[in-house]
């Protein structure tokens, strides 16, 4: 061997010395011909005679049938065993815990065997933990009757289905997998943008929770909470590696209590609509979403015409009845996802996510005509009233909630000055109310 060759030979020897996997060559009777250090280290504690001359002898305690397997192997070459897991008992005297080795044995030809041996204790442990948590989750999913648990992909569509989904929502696999999770909501309660908003919010804060009406496959409703939590790492950018877990819980029995609490905090006592505070919270959230991803967003402001006259002529009780009647009309006209609130007095506001000014004006027009076409019966007195409506759309020039409401307010006063019982849209150049009223007075 010349110098270069011996250099190469030495490098090869060292490569095998430090290889982090056990390698071994043996004769068909198990006599070890070549073995690298790691393999020797793994085999030695197993060897009952303390030696390392025969593979079958060394593995007698953990793989007693290996010799037989090799003898019974019929082909001239091929895999005798692949990744057999050998369980090695703990050896306290040698400070060794329980270990699991993976053994692969290859028949090279009629004379030689090759074996690969590795310590897979940790990866087996990890796999087992994973299976345990899976089993644990399955137990929860199948054991609790009021939870449905499923996985969503990066766009919020259901990736899988299980019995819990059917139990809670009545949906079978075909009606679930591939569908956006908004199918669990009543038809007009959650649009595509809203569904994505919740995923985004779950990404940002670790989870997103909302409670409200959910819909079963047969159309019936139940009061449910939806918890969405990301399954991916925060910095995961590959869409296929992003996923969420969705837990739907039927909390119908709890609804009375939470609803009472929610109403006391968020509802207007007279009409049952969202109160001012709940409106501003909802608006802030919707504006945040708009700033992140601008999309149509409109706000409608409704004011009962000549309400002071109704109060003066028929009394406050009748005035209240009118407000309740108007509230019911609003609830019936707008969608479940819209936020309908009483701003104060005879002023109402509706926030319409996903609606541009045209769409919002069309709904407002329908409301206007509907109210004008009805008469109320208040203690035998037939009474009709009308509303004036202002419509404003969100755009980059609107600084915040107050500014958006102010635009709708300006438009509403424009509707008043134009003769009431009508809808007006905000447009640049609309003057504040006092100026408008002064102008009308001057014209009159």
């Amino acid at each position, binding site marked *: 061997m010349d110098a270069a060759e011996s250099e190469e*030979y*030495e490098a090869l*020897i*060292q490569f*095998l*010395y*430090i290889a*982090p996997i056990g390698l071994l060559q043996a004769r068909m009777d198990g006599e*070890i*011909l*070549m*073995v*690298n*250090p*790691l*393999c*020797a*280290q793994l085999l*030695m504690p197993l060897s009952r005679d*303390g*030696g*390392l*001359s025969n593979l079958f002898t060394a593995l007698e305690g953990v793989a007693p049938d290996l010799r037989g397997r090799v003898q019974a192997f019929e082909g001239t070459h091929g895999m005798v065993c692949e990744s057999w897991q050998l369980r090695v008992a703990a050896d306290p005297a*040698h*400070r*060794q815990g329980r270990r699991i080795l993976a053994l692969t044995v290859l028949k090279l030809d009629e004379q030689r065997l090759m074996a690969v041996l590795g310590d897979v204790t940790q990866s087996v442990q990890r796999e087992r933990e994973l299976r345990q948590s899976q089993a644990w989750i399955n137990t929860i999913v199948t054991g609790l009757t009021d939870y449905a648990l499923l996985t969503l992909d990066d766009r919020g569509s259901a990736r899988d289905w299980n019995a819990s989904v059917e139990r809670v929502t009545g949906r079978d696999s075909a009606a679930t997998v591939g569908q956006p999770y908004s199918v669990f909501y009543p038809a007009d309660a959650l649009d595509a943008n809203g569904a994505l908003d919740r995923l985004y919010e779950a990404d940002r804060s670790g989870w997103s929770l909302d409670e409200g009406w959910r819909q079963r496959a047969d159309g019936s409703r139940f009061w449910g909470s939806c918890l969405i939590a990301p399954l991916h790492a925060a910095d995961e950018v590959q869409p296929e590696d992003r996923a969420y877990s969705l837990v739907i819980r039927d909390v119908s029995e709890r609804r009375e209590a939470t609803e009472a609490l929610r109403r006391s905090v968020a509802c207007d006592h007279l009409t049952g609509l969202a109160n001012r505070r709940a409106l501003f919270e909802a608006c802030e959230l919707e504006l945040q979403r708009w700033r992140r991803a601008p999309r149509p967003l409109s706000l409608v402001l409704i004011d009962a015409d000549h309400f002071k006259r109704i109060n003066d002529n028929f009394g406050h009780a009748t005035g209240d009845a009118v407000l309740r009647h108007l509230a019911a009309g609003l609830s019936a006209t707008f969608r479940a996802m819209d936020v309908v609130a009483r701003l104060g007095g005879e002023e109402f506001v509706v926030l319409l996510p996903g609606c541009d000014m045209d769409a919002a004006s069309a709904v407002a027009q329908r409301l206007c005509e509907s109210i004008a076409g009805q008469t109320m019966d208040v203690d035998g007195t037939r009474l009709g009233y009308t509303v004036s409506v202002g419509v404003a759309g969100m755009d980059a020039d609107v600084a915040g909630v107050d500014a958006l409401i102010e635009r709708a307010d300006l438009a509403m006063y424009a509707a008043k000055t134009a003769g009431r019982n009508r809808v007006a849209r905000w447009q640049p150049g609309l003057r504040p109310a006092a100026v408008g009223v002064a102008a009308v007075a001057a014209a009159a």
Partner: protein
Amino acid sequence: MAPAADSTVYSDTCESTFSMSTTQALSFADVELQAELDRCSDDDLDKLDFGVIAIDADGVVRRYNSFESKAAGLSPLRVLGQPLFTVVAPCMNNFMVAQRFDDALAQGSTLDTSIDYVLTLRMRPVKVRLRLLAVPGAASRYVLVQRPA
């Protein structure tokens, strides 16, 4: 142990240069071996009929004699300056060898133990006798390797 007998038998079977050397008095089982090894020059170590690996306090190989180099098939250049238990001989990185050195270091105690071991010299399993030497405060700790007759 039969130190004298072992080394005699071994010397007899070995090349004649070994038995004629000035260090023939040094044998694998000498009681004061650590002190004697410390005094040896590299040439002296190379004349010994057993393997000598000296490691420092960090486990880095500082001396590697010719007997061990031939047996393992590695030249001193590949080994000197490398951590013994992680890069050179991971097969000794266990409770039987490395752990004993660690324990002796941690407890500040003297280590002088001989054990039967199997090394995979040039990929062949070889039964050897190892002697592990460490004295608190000494610059070198030793792994000595004796091949059976």
